[in-house]
């Protein structure tokens, strides 16, 4: 199987298995007691160590890292845990942000959804104009989950800081793949997910700048997923810049080869995440491409309306100004550290084959 859907999830690094096992069957404390002679301290140390590794990667402090069950919980915690009033976000966020915002609107909050340009970037002027007296939060993703567009986080952070509005960044897709410095970028809150960096599923983190009070989502003492957290920390530690370079080269090769197929639309702009490429093929349908490749052992995803349960097209491509005719033929290829050059070659060959076959069948030839 060739897995090219790594923006959805990734394979757990096999080096984590021993650590996860250790904190499951040997050092299985819950890191709550301060008085334990050794047993509880072991699990506590694992949590502290993971906090330290993650904090260093984003230039924050270990005391500012909180563990969650992942991206959706971190995002919901931010949106539900702060004051009331006006929130600014974008039209291309992850579903956890957009759905939480919709729920908050029903509860009396007001939300501005910023537009994006054809590259998927917000317009800074529109952000400035959207700020109101009662705006308490700006929440904008660092990199997009479908097309890989990277926002100008440092500039956005500056605007928020000058306006004294809290700035939350969903960095689930970009953590370790792009530079993040919460100090330089004026980020107050940051979402991270372990399963997108070859860590375990169901574990995430929220960075919250010291002094920010968040109303808890869940009451009472919480049992942390210590094995998962220990694995998360190790996964972050094991990530290397070479991994990004390798993926960047492979993505470029994909772009070069796929670009040779006629009537192809490239949705991913230049200078995007190293591991995502979103493209569209005119006159054919993405679900058919994905299913065909799946039957050939290649896994990737589509933004076509025909693949979703609600038959709705990709909200990201829509916001970027692409019509349904374009998003129907869209696919997303997303790579990981483990993607090999041979896998890329096979994927290119099979993709050319299926696009040719489906176009042959299509009555619309352009």
């Amino acid at each position: 199987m060739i897995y090219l859907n790594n923006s959805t999830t990734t394979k757990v690094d096999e080096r984590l298995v021993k650590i996860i096992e250790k904190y499951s069957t040997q050092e299985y404390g819950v890191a709550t007691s301060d008085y334990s002679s050794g047993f509880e301290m072991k699990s506590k140390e694992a949590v502290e160590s993971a906090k330290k590794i993650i904090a260093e990667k984003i230039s924050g402090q270990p005391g500012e890292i909180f563990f969650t069950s992942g991206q959706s919980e971190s995002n919901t915690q931010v949106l539900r845990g702060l004051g009331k009033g006006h929130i600014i976000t974008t039209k291309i966020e992850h579903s956890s942000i957009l759905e939480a915002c919709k729920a908050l609107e029903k509860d009396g909050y007001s939300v501005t959804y910023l537009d994006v340009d054809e590259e998927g970037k917000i317009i800074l002027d529109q952000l400035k104009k959207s700020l109101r007296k009662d705006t308490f939060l700006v929440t904008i993703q660092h990199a997009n989950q479908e097309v890989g567009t990277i926002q100008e986080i440092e500039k956005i952070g500056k605007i928020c800081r000058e306006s004294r509005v809290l700035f939350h960044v969903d960095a689930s897709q970009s953590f370790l793949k792009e530079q993040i410095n919460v100090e330089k970028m004026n980020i107050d809150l940051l979402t991270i997910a372990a399963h997108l960096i070859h860590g375990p599923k169901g574990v995430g983190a929220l960075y919250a700048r010291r002094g920010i009070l968040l109303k808890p989502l869940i009451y009472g003492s919480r049992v942390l997923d210590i094995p998962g957290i220990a694995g998360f920390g190790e996964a972050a530690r094991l990530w290397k810049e070479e991994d990004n370079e390798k993926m960047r080269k492979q993505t470029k090769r994909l772009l070069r080869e796929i670009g040779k197929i006629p009537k192809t639309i490239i949705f991913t702009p230049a200078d995007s995440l190293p591991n995502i490429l979103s493209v569209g093929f005119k006159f054919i349908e993405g679900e058919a491409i994905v299913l065909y490749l799946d039957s050939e052992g290649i896994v990737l995803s589509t933004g076509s309306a025909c693949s979703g349960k609600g038959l709705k097209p990709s909200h990201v491509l829509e916001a970027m100004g692409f019509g349904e005719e374009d998003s129907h033929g869209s696919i997303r290829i997303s790579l990981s550290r483990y993607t090999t050059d041979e896998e890329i070659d096979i994927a290119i060959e099979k993709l050319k084959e299926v696009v040719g076959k489906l176009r042959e069948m299509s009555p619309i030839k352009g």
Partner: protein
Amino acid sequence: MSIYTEKVIEHFKNPRNQGKLKDYDAVGEKGNPVCGDVMYIYIKVKDDIIVDIGWETMGCAAAIATTSMLSELAKGKTLDEALKLTREDVADGLGGLPPVKMHCSNLAADALHEAILKYREKHKKKKSK
């Protein structure tokens, strides 16, 4: 578990009677590109029997598989028999379709009916001349 039956996948990967007929008597067209599904069905008729059928489809796997299935069901049938073929017959032939795909992707029977009506219209004119 896939949302599709094995039969759907099999027809999708090995479509029957696919292609535009060189010498067809009528064509039925359904769907539109914005919806993502477009089907053209070509028929060749002799003595009121569909002696050959071909098709072109743009759409998801279900759209391709349903057109393929319909072409198998319709080939060799009289026009009256073919007019009785329904979306349900096509779905049943494939061992079922996901409910969400029943309407948007299962247009082949409608396209066939249109082709037959067009053929009869043409034929009537010829007769009256």
